[in-house]
C-alpha cells in the first residue's frame, strides 16, 4: 500500500515571478482514483510532476514543502525528493500528454521492453509482461508495428502500456486521451478503471474535460492558479457551478442540466435536505428528468 501526502508544497519554475504551486496540502490514499482539473496554467501538470519525481529530479526550480511516499520502503515515509528516479519508476508509472515526446523506440514491442530492461526485469518474464500490457490497453495487434507509423491515439495507448508493464502501484497520467477518438477514449478509461478497481492501482489523472471521468473517480481536485480551489467526490464538487464558471472549467452536461432544473423551479436547491444527488451520467440525468414528468 502506497499513499501520498503532500505538505505545504510550493514550487516555482526558474525565472517565473509567481509560483506554479502554492502551499498545496493533499493526501492521496492507496487505491484512490483522483482527477486533477483546472484551466491552463492552474498547476495540474506541475502537481503531477511533483508526485512522479520529475520535480525535483529533472525539473529545475525552487521547491518548498514535501511530497511524502508512505509504504515505499519498510522504514516508513520518505520524501519523493530523496528517492532516486529509477526507484520511483518502480512504484509510479507516468504517461504524458505528448506521446511523441515520450516514445523512444522504433518498434512498439521494444518501447514496452525499454522500461522493463531499465528496471532489471528478468528477461524470461518480459514476453508475458509485454503481451499483458498490450492486451490490457487493447493494442496487442500493434506489437510489431513501427512506432513512427502509429496515429496519435495509438501512440497514447502505447505510452500507457509501457507504463503499465512496470506494474506500478500508482499511475500518473497527464491528459492521456487528448488525441483519442471516443472509442479509444472509452477503451483507455475502461483500462484505468479496471486497473483501479481490480488491481488497486492508484490513478492520478490531469484532465481539462471531466465529463467521462466523473462517474469513475473517487475525488476531483480543482486547481486555481496553483492552489486547491475545491476538492471532494464529484457529486459534492459539482454543487458549486459558480466556482467552475469562475475558473473557466466546464461543468459536465448532466450536472448542468440538474442546476438548470433547480433554476426552473422543478427541483429543490441542492443545499436543501430533500435534494436528489447531482447526476454524473446521461443515464442518471435522464432518470432524474423522467421523475419530473
Amino acid at each position, binding site marked *: 500500500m502506497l499513499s501520498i501526502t503532500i505538505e505545504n508544497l510550493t514550487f516555482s519554475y526558474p525565472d517565473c515571478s509567481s509560483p506554479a504551486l502554492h502551499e498545496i496540502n493533499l493526501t492521496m490514499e492507496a487505491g484512490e482514483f483522483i482527477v486533477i482539473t483546472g484551466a491552463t496554467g492552474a498547476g495540474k501538470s506541475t502537481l503531477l510532476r511533483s508526485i512522479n519525481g520529475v520535480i525535483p529530479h529533472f525539473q529545475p526550480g525552487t521547491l518548498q514543502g514535501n511530497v511524502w511516499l508512505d509504504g515505499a520502503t519498510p522504514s516508513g515515509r520518505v520524501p519523493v525528493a530523496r528517492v532516486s528516479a529509477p526507484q520511483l519508476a518502480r512504484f509510479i508509472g507516468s504517461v504524458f500528454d505528448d506521446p511523441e515526446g515520450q516514445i523512444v523506440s522504433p518498434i512498439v514491442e521494444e518501447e514496452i521492453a525499454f522500461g522493463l530492461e531499465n528496471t532489471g526485469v528478468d528477461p524470461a518474464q518480459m514476453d508475458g509482461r509485454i503481451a499483458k500490457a498490450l492486451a490490457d490497453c487493447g493494442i496487442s495487434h500493434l506489437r510489431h508495428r513501427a512506432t513512427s507509423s502509429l496515429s496519435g491515439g495509438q501512440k497514447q495507448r502505447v505510452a500507457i502500456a509501457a507504463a503499465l508493464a512496470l506494474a506500478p502501484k500508482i499511475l500518473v497520467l497527464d491528459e492521456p486521451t487528448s488525441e483519442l477518438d471516443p472509442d479509444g477514449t472509452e477503451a483507455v478509461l475502461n483500462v484505468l478503471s479496471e486497473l483501479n478497481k481490480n488491481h488497486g492501482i492508484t490513478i492520478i489523472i490531469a484532465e481539462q474535460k471531466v465529463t467521462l471521468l466523473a462517474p469513475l473517480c473517487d475525488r476531483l481536485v480543482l486547481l486555481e492558479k496553483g492552489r486547491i480551489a475545491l476538492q471532494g467526490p464529484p457529486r459534492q464538487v459539482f454543487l458549486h457551478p459558480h466556482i467552475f464558471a469562475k475558473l473557466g472549467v466546464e461543468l459536465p452536461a448532466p450536472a448542468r442540466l440538474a442546476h438548470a432544473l433547480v433554476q*426552473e423551479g422543478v427541483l429543490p436547491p441542492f443545499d436543501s435536505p430533500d435534494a436528489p444527488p447531482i447526476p454524473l451520467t446521461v443515464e442518471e440525468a435522464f432518470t432524474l428528468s423522467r421523475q419530473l414528468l
Partner: protein
Amino acid sequence: MPAKLTGRPLIEVRQLKHTYRSGGEALKGIDLTINTGEMIAVVGRNGAGKTTLTKHFNGLLRPTAGTVLLDGQDTAKLPVAQLARTVGYVFQNPDHQIFHERLFDEIAFGPRNLGLRGDELTARVDSALKAVDLTEYRDRDPGDLSRGQRKRAALASVLAMETAVIILDEPTSGQDYQESEQIMEILRELNRRGHTILFITHDMELVQEHAHRVLLIDDGKLVIDAPPQELFRQEQALTSAGLRLPPTAELEQRLAAFGIHSDAGTVEALATSIARRSSRIIARDSFDENCSGGVAACQ
C-alpha cells in the same frame, strides 16, 4: 480577406482515392462539394481518413486516383506554394509546423513568402498574435511555450496568411474550456467574414455548437454529410463509426419519447422544456413565469 473567387464550388472532390506507399488504402472514393463560406466539421475515428482527406485540399497529398478541384482548378497541377495562398492548414501537432526561434518570425514566415514587408507585415503578425492571445510572447522562443500555447501559435501563423480556406486538425485538443471557446470564436468570426472553415475534431459538443455541416468519415469513405442535428439522429451510424452522441443530444433524444423537445442543443433549453411538462413545481411562482408567453407556451 478571402481571395476573390469565381462562382464555382470552392472545393470539388470527385472519386478521390488515396493509397499510402505502405499499402494502406486510406481513401476509397470520396465525392464532395464545398462552397465558399461553409463551416464544416470533419469527424470519424482515429485512422478513418479525416486528415488524409483534408491534406488533399492544400496539396500536402496528391490523389492516387480521382480529382480535387480548388476553385475549378485541378490541385494536382497547382504548385503547393500557390495552393498555400488559398488554403491554410493547422496541423494536429504544432511541433510539425513550428521551426523559428522567435515567435514573431514564426508567424511572419508565411506573410513574408507572400511578399509582405515592413509595417504591413508587422501589423499582420501582431493582429494574428492578438487574436490567439499570445502578444506577450511575441519575442520569445516558441519552444518555451506550453503545448496549448504552441497550438495557438500554429493557428496564428495560418491566420496571418488570411487564406480563403482554413483547415484545422483538432484545433482544441490540449486547450482548456475557455481557450477552446476562444479558438472557436476566432473561427466563427473568420467564417462570418467569409472564410471557409473546416475543422477535424473528436469533440461532438464542439460539432453541435459550431458546425453547420458535418462530414462523417469511416474506413476511407464519406458515410454521412449532413447538419449536426441530422447526424445526431443517426445514432447507429455514429456509434458504428466509433463516435458518440454529445451528452445533450443523447438526453434530448431519450427525453423526446416523453414529449420533451428542444433543438437548441443546450441543457438550459432542455430544462425549460422539462419544466413546462412537469407537474412538480417546487418554487412558488416559477410556473407562472414559464407561462408568461401564454397558454400555448405551456402545452
